[in-house]
């Protein structure tokens, strides 16, 4: 039986390449220890994080999602993080409609020099999601999203219909 003490939440983290990913690297270089629950997925900009990616993470069993980008005004792409900020408001409402507490989605700003902040953000996020408990039954809640969230869409999906491994496949002799 999972108790709040033994529950280890699974959290997918979307980290922008220029600020937070570098900040997370710095935390490592500085040997700052933090919980292993956040699984980082690198994106070039937090502005790339479309709602489907967040829903996909919950669909795949994540108990929480952490998006982290550059501080407002410091975005490598000028203002992508502002777009993320606005999208987060919408996502909060969307998640609530699916019965997912909006506290399970967190948006933070961590710069390339803030390794200590990253360690703190992860620690806090993990604790917050641990208190919320397991999400459970996510797939039921996200039923209506099925189809969007499957990676292996049929050809002609979001990948221009090219076979993902069209080139170089021949070397294997298949």
């Amino acid at each position: 039986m999972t108790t709040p003490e033994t529950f280890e939440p699974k959290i997918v983290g979307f980290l922008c390449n220029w600020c937070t990913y570098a900040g997370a690297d710095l935390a490592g270089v500085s040997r700052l220890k933090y919980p292993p629950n956040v699984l980082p997925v690198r994106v070039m900009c937090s502005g790339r994080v479309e709602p489907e990616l967040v829903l996909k993470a919950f669909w795949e069993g994540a108990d929480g999602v952490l998006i982290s980008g550059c501080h407002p005004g410091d975005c490598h792409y000028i203002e992508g993080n502002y777009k993320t900020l606005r999208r987060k408001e919408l996502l909060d409402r969307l998640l609530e409609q699916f019965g997912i507490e909006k506290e399970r989605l967190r948006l933070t700003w961590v710069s390339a020099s803030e390794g200590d902040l990253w360690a703190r953000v992860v620690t806090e996020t993990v604790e917050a999601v641990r208190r919320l408990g397991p999400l459970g039954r996510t797939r039921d809640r996200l039923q209506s999203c099925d189809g969007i969230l499957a990676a292996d869409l049929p050809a002609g999906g979001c990948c221009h219909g090219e076979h993902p491994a069209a080139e170089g496949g021949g070397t294997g002799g298949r």
Partner: protein
Amino acid sequence: MSAPDARIGVYVCHCGTNIAGTVDVPAVRDFAAGLPGVVVARDYKYMCADPGQDLIKKDIKELGVNRVIVASCSPRMHEPTFRRCLQLAGLNAYYFEMANIREQVAWCTADKAAATKKAQALVRGAVARVPYHEPLEERTSPVCPVTLIVGGGVAGIEAALKIASSGNKVWLVEREPSIGGNMARFDKTFPTLDCAACILTPKMADVGRHPNITLLTYSEVLEVSGFIGNFEVTIKKRARSVRHGVCTGCGVCYSKCPTKVPSEFDVGLGERTAIYVPFPQAVPNVPVIDREVCRQFTKGKCGICQKVCPAGAVDYEQQDEIIKEKFGVIIIATGFEVFDPSLAPQYGYGRYPDVYTALQFERMTNASGPTTGRVVCRNGQEPKAVAILHCIGSRDKNYYPYCSRVCCMASVKAAHLAKEKSGGAEIYEFYIDMRTFGKQYEEFYNRVQEEGVHFIRGKGAEVIEKDGRLVVHAEDTLLGLYREVPVDMVVLNTALIPHADAGRVAQIFNIQRSQDGFYLEAHIKLDPMKTATEGVYLAGACQSPKDIPDSVAQGAGAAAEALQRIVAGEVVISPVTCAIDADRCAGCRMCIPLCPYTAITFNAEKGVSECNEALCKGCGTCVASCASGAARLKHFDQRQLLAQIEGVAAS
């Protein structure tokens, strides 16, 4: 879900004990071997070393591996290394993916089992992702061979001269009316007691007359767009009110000007006129009218300088000029400012007239300064005793936690000069630790000790006034005694801090700042000149407090970085850009206002939006907003990311 043709090779790196000390590398390897599509999984002590790379090349050739995953350090470290390795083996570089199990797993996780599990999850994410990778080709773009240098202190000057002497064009933009920066304020430099002006002014003059250098003083950069090789920069050249090229620099105008205000160059110790040159050796030697205080501008009448100018150079009608120019590379050399010690009221600065900052003291010792080089109190008397306090604002968590690096040596120099220029006053230095780290620095410290300066190990705690003298309170930590030292003059060696507008400047140039507020370098040890923005380099104290030798060295280093780009003539542009599928685009135009680079335009004829990949920088903001899934960011497309999420989150 794996594509049938993907033949994945996974290589798990030990990185000596860096990874293997925390992560069970063989367990990660065995785990990877069991994942769909993986044809080979290996581990090796150092994957980045030649034998490690050879393993990959061999498997590509012999096993037909066509997707490569290296689980090792951050992609910010070695992704280029391994991409090159793939290319050498004849595979497209973008069939590569890295799992960061060092910085973001081994080094930050205390528990070994948990670390191994997280490493496995990240590898699973990469394995899920790579089948959807597609071959991408890097593009090249020409580099405009002109360098922009922002800031005309000693670092910017050094960089400008190096680049100009190589035969390439440089624009040097300086906010103040003259180049020279803080070094121009000093009288002597440590450790040799070289005259600062004697070594700096020849370089300043070289900048002023070099045919390859366009010098814009009293000017500021307003806006930067574009990217390495093709920056478009908007510069505001403020109206000087004196025509350059007509003015002969005779100086009659400022000798007749009736308005006097405190001189910024003398840090408030002396006065300047409304039309002025900040110091006699200014480059360019063309005065500027401070319109905020000039009577002609504030009251609408005066006109003396115009009347007395024999060359007819004074022009009250001159307007600010906006200049737009293209540059290939940019060097930021904007320097530092000093901590305002009135924010630490215990030292009495601003309350007691004979408490000075070190920068004011520099001006006092300078022959062209407000006291013509004599060390005297406000009452005109030479001090009998001078206290020099280290670390005011530095190494202090109430203000700035870092060491400002130059102050110990500046203090030792100040002690020497105070003794020499005051007719032999007793000098007391209050220090926490003495940091005399540079070439000939310790020797200079020894020399000044032998000159009879009293060095007291203990930070000055307070300065008070008692019986008409200043008294410095401090704990002498060597004697274990509390001391009260009466003096006539106190010099506060204040912290070197980032400019108040460093944040705004960072935004203009799209660079980052470290936690101390100085500009952030690409790597603190191995890439001190680069920033995260390609083509923008750092020189001097804008990166961290630096003394003159280090600023000069970094200025020359930044020039080498800039020249490397200019000589190469072209830069490689990442193929990670957006593409819009015309068949899927509904023509809603949602993406157009979202693009920060105006790379997307609407094709009215076809009724679809189109992305100009030459302008696109690959942020993916448009992709995230596209309702019909027509916009796609190469290498970070929806399939790849969905698969990666599936991989990392699978339990």
